């Protein structure tokens, strides 16, 4: 810039006497005139006034000034004024520089001489700087006319209505299931004693009716990006599980079996899992409280709703429980007897005392159904499909697969090699554990459903895969189980009297006669060995010994089974294994065994058994049953030359672990044939998954996104958790004894095959079901679905994340109360009948826990009530500020108490703050009603027993007006807790990038002149989120914020100060240090050019990147190095 063309005008303000009293402004004006670039140097009493401004304008026009320096107050006061003034005179507004000689000079110094010298330096610095300044153009950004309001209390509601009235769109986001905020909890409001609901609900209803207000309840803001006029916001809508069809009839709440304390009533009253927070909730639909799913449901491979039927049993609704079970489980009666119950292992009650006896409860429900209803009718089948599916094997995997596919309408045929149906259930498990008559009832039900069973059909002999495909079967599920007993591979095994466990049991179950020895050895440690041993006893063996090669701890059989066996007289020898079978005349007579010891763990994690050298011994046995595991018999599969199925190294069928498809696309497999010998329920889970897979396959859908459950989810549990958010922690819950499972007397039962377990009685079942903790609140009993006429309940809803584009955001997130238990002298949380203000509002409210009556915990009316002001407010230890509304609502409480009871009322205050319209009159009113006001801080509240043995509370305080210490006996104490910013304030502040003041409330731009805006353009605050206030002030502030929003929308676009950073692409080396440092995420990296780029609209001109750039490639416009150096030069010259 050519120095000759710079013409600077310098204007020094007296500011009345504010500046001129300490700084000799005339002298300064004279001194700075020496600078050759200064054309004119004037002083004036009030530069910011109209004549002052005109002075500058005239000089610009007449003297041709092209730079202006104003030496006056802080730029924060009038920089904008002077810039506008320059613009009016035709000069670019950024060719102005302010020297602050008031706040930074005259106001902080006393010595006139030194102050004047300092002022001269400051003005000189400004002069040198302004010479280097160049014209800048502000940027323009368009304003999106939609607005987001976060928080649906009275502030949010009012702002939404005001903005919507203008025709503009509003998104109103509220984290609870209804709008209304804290005000919805109140009974009456001061000073008019309007009923809160009466004045609030019409506004709430308006919100729901306005088409241009999009109401998002049960929603939270997750991410905010962008800048004023152009925000992109991600909002998570949590699942309500109830859709808009809900008519709010309330039938569902009547049948819901789970109750938890209601947070809206501040935990003074219970509500059901499906609920509405209060009768006038908007949206006027119910909502289901579903927290983390109960572990019993999550671990079950077929996702049986255990928690659901347990809750129904607890309520005595046995028929509903049985129906719920049957809906999902065709083998419910079987599971109730023999399932290995992973649900019990996962049960959270185990953290308190012992897990629930869930299996027994299931058995109880099904037995009750059998007794009272006959056989359950099968569930309804959806439309019939003309597609045939073949299931090979009628074990648990095959049966569940058949059930699920048949429900979907497919034509299902089950092929079974034996004459009886059920796989291991029929030929493996003994009668005394699972009566075959019960199994047959379940199979009859499936036949009723239309499942076709073909018995005596052996795969590979009577039919093959080729014949099936020829017969029109479009898919096959192979579930032939693992029925081949593994051999010991020791000499003598082929002698008569040696038999595998599975073969032994199969013969018994099929009614085939066989040899039973007198001294029977059973080799093995699993449930098959136990079954074989107990069966042998029942068939007349005199002595039955189980020989297991590891110790009791490693034995795989369930502890209950082991105990049952021992009770019946079975002997168990540990750490021993046979090495040779010794016989005479081809028949077994002895077993040579060797002692074992435990070595290092093997691949299963159990310690390896190692023979102890020279420890052989011989025992007399005339029958040896070998039950050391089974393997699938895959010989039948080799018969299919067209289809070669892959077999794993363990001898099982290979399948994809998610889809259960084999290497042949239309053949699926599951159960023991894939897993090796496993459990009934695991096989059932696979059957269920296979059915879903086959359904997808037959509909040409991709085999992804499964709804079924297999394998069951891994549950992460920690002892410090609770079953749900309103419960006590596990260590605090009272312990209750688990019910004892009744069994028949062992000395009698070992002689017959009748059932060993007796089953629980009704009383025992209800007792045990009452121990359930209702983990996750909603237990999915599905009773609500049954009674919902409009069909508005959807338990499978998922959270939804929506993204909205808005121009401006209003934050009205309200308040929470100070936790009074921190002031333990007042006994809150320890002593009874001490309430905080919101709790007392609920007590006063007719929809609250006492129906609007003021009662003590024991139901009696209080004789005297004490109200304590300033609990946590005006307190050096907690909140220093005054909460503004407490004096008034305390008086309101006093009045209502006097109105509804005959109790004496005492109010303990420090100052009475009754500043608003009608407030002082209200104060006089309550004084006239005879309320006792005591000026003094309360020291403590203690409990005392009086002469007749009852407990009262005593408030100890000082009465400063009479100068005495007082102890006031009362029945109830109400605390006026401080109003604190709501718990999400910190998180929301970080998301939006807005600051908070030291007390935690959001920071306003100016406490007097602009309490609605934040220093962040485009984001406003209203209501108690900004600071404690009453309802009239909240509504006023909300409308004010709305007005600000509308004015900007009306303008349509906004100017952004060009004091921002700019990257010189030629100098930029692409190191990206600035990208990371920018606190506003305003710098992007352009891949193609390998340089950084500053987003004009997001940059706030903080200068961090300018300083950090190692290449010096970034300049701050309006703050270039040249300008700053000149300024420093100017300071040092004088």
């Amino acid at each position, binding site marked *: 810039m050519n120095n000759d063309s710079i013409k600077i005008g310098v204007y020094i303000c007296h500011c009345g006497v504010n500046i001129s009293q300490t700084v000799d402004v005339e002298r300064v004006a004279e001194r700075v005139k020496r600078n050759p670039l200064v054309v004119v140097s004037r002083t004036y009493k009030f530069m910011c006034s109209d004549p002052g401004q005109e002075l500058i304008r005239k000089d610009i026009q007449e003297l041709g000034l092209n730079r202006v320096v104003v030496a006056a107050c802080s730029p924060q006061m009038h920089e904008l004024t002077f810039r506008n003034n320059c613009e009016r005179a035709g000069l670019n507004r950024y060719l102005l520089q302010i020297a602050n000689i008031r706040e930074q000079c005259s106001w902080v110094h006393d010595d006139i001489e030194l102050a004047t010298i300092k002022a001269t330096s400051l003005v000189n610095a400004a002069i040198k700087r302004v010479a280097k300044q160049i014209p800048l153009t502000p940027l323009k950004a368009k304003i999106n006319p939609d607005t987001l309001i976060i928080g649906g209390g009275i502030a949010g509601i009012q702002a939404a209505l005001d903005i919507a009235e203008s025709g503009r769109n509003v998104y109103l986001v509220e984290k609870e299931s209804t709008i209304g905020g804290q005000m919805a909890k109140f009974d009456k409001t001061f000073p008019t004693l309007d009923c809160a609901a009466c004045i609030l609900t019409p506004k709430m209803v308006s919100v729901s009716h306005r088409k241009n207000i999009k109401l998002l309840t049960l929603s939270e803001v997750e991410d905010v990006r962008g800048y004023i006029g152009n925000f992109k916001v991600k909002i998570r809508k949590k699942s309500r599980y109830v859709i808009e069809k809900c008519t709010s009839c309330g039938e569902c709440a009547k049948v819901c079996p789970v109750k938890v304390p209601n947070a809206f009533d501040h935990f003074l009253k219970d509500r059901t899992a499906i609920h509405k927070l209060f009768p006038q909730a908007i949206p006027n639909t119910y909502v289901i409280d579903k927290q983390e799913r109960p572990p019993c449901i999550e671990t079950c491979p077929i996702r049986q709703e255990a928690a659901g039927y347990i809750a129904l049993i607890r309520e005595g609704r046995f028929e509903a429980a049985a129906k719920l079970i049957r809906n999902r489980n065709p083998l419910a009666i079987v599971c109730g007897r023999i399932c290995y119950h992973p649900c019990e292992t996962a049960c959270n009650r185990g953290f308190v005392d012992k897990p629930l006896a869930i299996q027994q409860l299931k058995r109880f429900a099904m037995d009750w159904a059998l007794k009272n209803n006959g056989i359950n009718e099968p569930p309804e089948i959806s439309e019939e499909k003309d597609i045939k599916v073949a299931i090979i094997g009628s074990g648990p995997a095959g049966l569940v697969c058949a059930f699920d596919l048949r429900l979907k309408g497919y034509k299902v045929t089950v092929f079974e090699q034996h004459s009886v149906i059920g796989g291991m259930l029929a030929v493996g498990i003994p009668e005394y554990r699972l009566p075959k008559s019960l199994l047959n009832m379940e199979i009859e039900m499936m036949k009723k459903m239309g499942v076709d069973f073909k018995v005596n059909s052996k795969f590979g002999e009577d039919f093959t895969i080729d014949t099936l495909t020829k017969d029109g079967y479009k898919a096959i599920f192979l579930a032939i189980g693992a029925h081949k007993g593994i051999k010991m591979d020791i000499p003598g095994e082929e002698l008569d009297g040696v038999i595998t466990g599975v073969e032994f049991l199969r013969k018994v179950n099929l009614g085939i006669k066989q040899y039973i020895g007198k001294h029977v050895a059973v080799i093995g440690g699993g449930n098959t060995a136990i079954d074989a041993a107990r069966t042998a006893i029942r068939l007349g063996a005199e002595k039955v010994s189980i020989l297991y090669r590891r110790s009791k701890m490693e034995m795989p059989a369930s502890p209950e089974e082991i105990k049952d066996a021992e009770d019946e007289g079975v002997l168990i020898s540990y750490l021993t294994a046979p090495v040779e079978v010794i016989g005479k005349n081809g028949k077994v007579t002895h077993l040579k065994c060797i002692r074992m010891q435990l070595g290092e763990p093997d691949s299963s994690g159990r310690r390896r058994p190692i023979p102890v050298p020279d420890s052989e011994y011989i025992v007399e046995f005339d029958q040896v049953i070998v039950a050391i595991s089974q393997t699938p018999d895959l010989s039948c599969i080799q018969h299919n030359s067209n289809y070669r199925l892959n077999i794993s190294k363990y001898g099982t069928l290979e399948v994809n672990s998610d889809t259960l498809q084999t290497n042949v696309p239309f053949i699926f497999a599951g159960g023991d044939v894939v897993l090796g010998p496993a459990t009934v329920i695991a096989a059932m889970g696979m059957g269920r998954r296979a059915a879903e897979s086959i359904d997808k396959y037959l509909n040409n859908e991709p085999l992804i996104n499964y709804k079924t459950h297999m394998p069951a989810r891994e549950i992460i549990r920690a002892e410090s958790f609770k079953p749900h958010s309103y419960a006590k922690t596990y260590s605090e819950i009272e312990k209750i004894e688990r019910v004892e499972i009744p069994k028949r007397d062992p000395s009698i039962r070992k002689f017959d095959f009748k059932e060993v377990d007796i089953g629980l009685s009704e009383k025992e079942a209800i007792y045990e079901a009452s121990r359930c903790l209702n983990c996750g609140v909603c237990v999915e009993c599905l009773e609500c679905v049954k009674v919902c006429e409009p069909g508005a309940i959807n338990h499978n809803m998922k959270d939804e994340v929506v993204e909205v584009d808005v121009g401006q955001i209003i934050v009205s997130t309200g308040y929470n109360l100070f936790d009074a238990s921190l002031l333990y002298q007042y006994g809150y949380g320890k002593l009874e009948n001490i309430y905080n203000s919101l709790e007392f509002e609920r007590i006063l409210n007719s929809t609250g826990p006492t129906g609007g009556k003021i009662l003590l915990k024991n139901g009696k009316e209080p004789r005297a009530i004490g109200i304590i002001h300033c609990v946590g407010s005006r307190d050096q230890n907690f909140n220093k500020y005054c909460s503004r509304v407490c004096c008034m609502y305390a008086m309101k409480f006093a009045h209502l108490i006097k109105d509804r009871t005959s109790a004496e009322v005492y109010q303990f205050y420090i100052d009475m703050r009754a500043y608003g319209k009608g407030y002082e009159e209200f104060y006089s009113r309550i004084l006239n009603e005879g309320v006792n006001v005591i000026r003094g801080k309360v020291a403590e509240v203690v*409990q*005392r*027993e009086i002469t007749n043995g009852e407990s009262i509370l005593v408030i100890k305080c000082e009465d400063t007006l009479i100068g005495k210490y007082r102890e006031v006996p009362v029945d109830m104490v109400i605390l006026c807790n401080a109003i604190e910013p709501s718990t999400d304030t910190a998180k929301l502040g970080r998301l939006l990038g807005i600051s908070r003041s030291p007390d935690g409330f959001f920071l306003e731009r100016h406490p007097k002149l602009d309490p609605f805006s934040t220093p962040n353009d485009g984001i406003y605050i209203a209501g108690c989120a900004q600071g404690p206030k009453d309802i009239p002030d909240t509504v006023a502030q909300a409308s004010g914020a709305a007005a600000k929003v509308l004015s900007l929308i009306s303008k349509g676009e906004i100017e952004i100060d060009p004091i921002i950073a700019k990257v010189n692409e030629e100098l930029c080396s692409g190191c990206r240090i600035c990208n990371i440092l920018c606190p506003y995420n305003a710098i992007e990296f352009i891949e193609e050019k390998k340089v950084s780029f500053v987003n004009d609209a997001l940059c706030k001109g903080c200068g961090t990147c300018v300083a950090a750039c190692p290449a010096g490639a970034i300049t701050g416009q309006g703050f270039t190095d040249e300008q700053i150096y000149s300024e420093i030069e100017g300071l040092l010259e004088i």
Partner: protein
Amino acid sequence: MEYTYYPGCSLHSVNKQYDKSCKAVFEKLDIKLNELEDWNCCGATFYMSVDEITSLSIAARNLALAEKSKNDLMAPCSSCFTVLSKTNRFLRRHEELHKNINSILQSIGLEYNLSVRVRHPLDILVNDVGFELIRMKVKHPLTGLRIANYYGCQIVRPEKGFDDRENPVTMDKLFEMLDADSVYFPVKVKCCGAMSMITAEDVALKLIYEILNTAIENDADLIVTTCPLCQMNLEAYQDKVNKKFQTNLRIPIYYFTQVLGVALGIDDEKLGINNNFYISEKLREISRAPMLTTIYDGPTDELKRRQIK
């Protein structure tokens, strides 16, 4: 673990039971107590208001002597504890004062370098020794005993020490661990009247009355204290209180080390219980019950149930 033991005047005279029981308890827990050689009177609480320099010098002499060993200094008497702690604090905060006092000490050949930690036995038992170690040695769980834990005002005030100033819980938790019930006792840190029993009897009697009455109202079997002056005030003037307030209050007052000693199986004689004015029958029963032969498991669930009620 080893500690230097500062009994103070009252433990060697009127309140010998505290001295006996304190020593017995720590011996049982295998902790060595070495009595401070040639200790002198700490000056008691009031002297500091009368003549600061002299009182600090007297107290500092004990600290200088204690500094010779590296161990913490245990002061069972609450007044001694407060005086010695305050001395430590003043000397640490004010360098001038420290120099002054040191010059006085130097005239008798001593010097104090601010390294001694003054501790109360309650603090040591709960925080240094710990519940686990104590649990191992329990022979008589205090099941069913209802205790009013009276801390007095000096061990947790004026500055924050090892427990809260308004609602300390160290002693409550100690006895709950031994399966006793710590009753609701809001006056646990209210002054007992201290020396004003001598100078303003009316005031002191009223304070004593409130403490005794609250304990009895809440069904306590006995009050445990940590201070010899509190113990004396609460115990020795029950008749005077009854006369003044027309009441019939009677409740045994024990040192916490005596009750702890019973739980550890030490016999009454060693704990000086026979020197107490009023004996608690319930505690005596507990001390006469057969000793545990297995290791004490900790408080029963019964206790939780009793507390919830």
